[in-house]
């Protein structure tokens, strides 16, 4: 469903992606792990055209991803994104955040968008917060609204860019719980994360990225329990046993 072929990307003189080739099948949950600055987020941002890439080709359901082409709008309505810092619209309520895309991008009738928006907020456990503005919500609640906003576009896949990194530790579980439910329901997901427990339990496949290349990839449990490459072993040791 999502195909990346030999993606190269530089910021100035620094090459952050040095030939990434990967694919994500429908219904698959793929976690991307690796050290900071390894290019994980850049991969996600290239997939929905928030970032351009210099070489190679990315396609979503056969549609080429080109951030300067009009077709990018179609790509983005099929592949939603959830950000590390939530990026909710602070001047709109939780419900308004959720229905913004359906109303103004997909031009759904208001009544229908509202009904589905409410249902989505209920699905992420925030039915009673529909009229709250983002600054009145906790980080975990904001992130769940952001997930509802992504779902409202009825995407074929959702990209998660370190969705729990900006959260207080006790709020992480709620967000991961919502994500796990989505995975169980068959949503295609690409998740950049440092939550190894989530990756092990929920992901089908894990890509370990370092220095702009895929160092190792494979089924989640196998890769995280018995990493083959020394760099993967070293990284996992540091993450899982920081002391």
């Amino acid at each position, binding site marked *: 469903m999502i195909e990346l072929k030999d993606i190269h990307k530089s910021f100035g003189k620094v090459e952050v992606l040095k030939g990434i080739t990967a694919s994500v099948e429908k219904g698959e949950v793929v976690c991307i792990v690796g050290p900071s600055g390894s290019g994980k987020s850049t991969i996600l941002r290239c997939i929905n055209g928030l970032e351009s890439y210099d070489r190679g080709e990315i396609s979503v359901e056969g549609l080429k991803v080109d951030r300067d082409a009009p077709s990018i709008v179609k790509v983005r*309505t099929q592949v939603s994104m959830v950000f590390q810092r939530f990026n909710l619209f602070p001047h709109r309520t939780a419900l308004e955040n959720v229905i913004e895309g359906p109303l103004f*991008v997909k031009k759904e009738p208001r009544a229908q968008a509202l009904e589905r928006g409410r249902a989505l907020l209920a699905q992420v456990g925030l039915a009673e917060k529909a009229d709250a503005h983002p600054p009145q919500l906790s980080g975990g609640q904001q992130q769940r609204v952001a997930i509802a906003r*992504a779902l409202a576009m009825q995407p074929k896949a959702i990209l998660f860019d370190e969705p729990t990194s900006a959260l207080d530790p006790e709020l992480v579980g709620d967000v991961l719980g919502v994500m796990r439910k989505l995975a169980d329901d068959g949503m295609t997901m690409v998740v950049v994360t440092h939550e190894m427990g989530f990756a092990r339990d929920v992901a089908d496949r894990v890509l370990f990225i370092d220095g702009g290349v895929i160092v190792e990839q494979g089924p989640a449990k196998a890769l995280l329990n018995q990493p083959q490459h020394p760099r993967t072993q070293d990284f996992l040791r540091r993450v899982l046993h920081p002391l």
Partner: protein
Amino acid sequence: MKGFWHDAAEFFPILMSGVALTIVVTIGSLLLSTVLGLIWAMMRVSGIKALSMLSASLINVIRGIPIIVLLFYLYFVMPDLGVTLSALQAAILGLGIAYSAYQAENFRAGIEAIDKGQIEAAQSIGMGWWLTMRRVVLPQAVRIVLPPYGNVMIMMLKDSSQASTITVAELALQGKLIASSTFKNTSVFTLVALMYLTMSIPLILLVRHFEKRAGKR
């Protein structure tokens, strides 16, 4: 003091007709400068190089010319080019153009102050440039822009007096006419100053209100 009140009662009605014109010039040029400023600012942040550069040069040209020269140009030079404007039209047009440069810089600062994550979130749900501006950026930028916008309103109210140089009989010119025919300079100009101040005070309070509201978030 008694003389002042007597003079005030006598000149007040004439000065009030000046006040009416002052308000017309201020509101007219405020609206024009807002629309033009918004256009310059949108061109500036459009991401299209030619539009952005055109807007930047326009702003610099406008900023570099004194208001009074702009007014003279519109009122005295344009007729030579076949465009004749009434004094009031020239005043509104001149002040509106002159202040559009400051409005544009103010609007641009407000737009650029919006977190990039907001724009990315809008794009990620499929919004294009214009929809992102209309639904996400501008509504948030308004809060940031309002306090300096209020200050521009006060400056424009006072600078509307420059229209007197091209014969618009607004408050300052009415005062000057009365003073030069009655020689009661002190009474007349004190009264004129008080009238400007009276018009400014509500605007000053409005700016304070905007500042409080903007500070809330």
